[in-house]
């Protein structure tokens, strides 16, 4: 009885082979049940979650990349716009400069022309006046002379003399 206690499976009742078969069967059934009711659905959920997280991360990465690209685009556009406006202003300045030169030149020419015209007119007027004066002086002096000297000289000699003296006076 004592030695029996140390023999495997013979602790008190001998080798109960059906227990072994039952254990095996129970374990397999338990495994099958666990698979059907717990393991498979749980694995599915865990896998779904894994995929969900992965896709979310991918999406986030894509969005980040897109945002980066957009930012770069915007920066590019801003730079272009700035440059464009700069050149625009520069051109306008240049054009204004040219226009200013043009206007000043035109004004100067106009003034020059006016001056010239005025000068010519003055000259003309002066000449006219001198001519008229000459004529009047001639007739006036003849009149005066004739009145002073009366018939001492012929009118023809007299006119000659006066013309000569006027010419001299004009030359002086």
């Amino acid at each position, binding site marked *: 009885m004592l030695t029996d*206690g140390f023999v*495997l*499976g013979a*602790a*008190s*009742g*001998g*080798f*109960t*082979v*059906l*227990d*072994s078969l*039952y*254990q*095996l069967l*129970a*374990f397999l*059934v*338990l*495994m099958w*049940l*666990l*698979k059907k*009711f*717990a*393991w498979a*659905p*749980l*694995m599915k*959920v*865990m896998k*779904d*979650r894994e995929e*969900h997280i992965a896709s979310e991360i991918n999406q986030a990465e894509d969005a980040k990349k897109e945002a980066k690209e957009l930012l770069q685009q915007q920066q590019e556009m801003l730079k272009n716009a700035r440059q464009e406006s700069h050149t625009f202003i520069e051109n306008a300045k240049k054009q204004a400069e040219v226009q200013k030169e043009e206007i000043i030149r035109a004004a100067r020419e106009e003034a020059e022309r006016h001056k010239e015209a005025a000068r010519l007119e003055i000259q003309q007027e002066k000449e006219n006046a001198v001519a008229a004066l000459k004529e009047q002086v001639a007739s006036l002096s003849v009149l005066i002379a004739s009145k002073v000297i009366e018939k001492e000289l012929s009118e023809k000699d007299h006119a000659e003399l006066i013309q000569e003296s006027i010419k001299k006076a004009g030359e002086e």
Partner: protein
Amino acid sequence: MHHEEPVRELFWGLTYNPSNILMITISSLIVFLIALLCTRKLAMKPTGAQNFIEWVMDFVKGIIQSNLDWKNGARFHLLALTLIMYIFVSNMLGLPFAVVYGHELWWKSPTADPLITMTLAVMVLGLTHYYGVKLRGAKNYLLGYTQPMKVMTPIKIVEEFSNTLTLGLRLYGNIYAGETLLALLVSLGTSGIIGGVLAFPLMMVWQGFSIFIGAIQSFIFTMLTMVYMAHKVSADH
């Protein structure tokens, strides 16, 4: 202090132990109920019970991954999960009480019976051989016995049997010893007032320790299962 095991004969001399049958059934039922209750409300955002069962699954996955790469090891996940849960629950069953009817012990851990643990061990080792042949081919499987040198072959063959034996008997020994000591403490506690005062704290300490032992043994059994599996199915061992 020795309780008889109830042994009945079915027919033609085939005997069975109804207490084992009972406890195996109860263990399996409890494991199944735990798993079922923990997976009733499955959600992407896990809560409560689902967190627990997922932690168990990850724990088992960790055991497998410490021996095999997950590509090969994923197929053993269910096996390891069932093993660790079943053995843990079995180990716990004998701790709170034992039921003795007449002189026969009816309520105990099923793993306190060497036949049960040896059945599990033989099943596990059988599976390692099966998967060894299936995953690596019969030739590589047989060549595995001559590694690292041919002289080792007899030792390798003996190792297979000793592995089986130690795997089963380690579990049995730990649980049976724990329950035997509990039974001794109970008989001390019921022997008189002094015995009762003495036995009470000892019972508490030993039960706490047995919970620890039971958990550790279920972990070790699963871990060794995967170690033996890794020996057979991966080439670099």
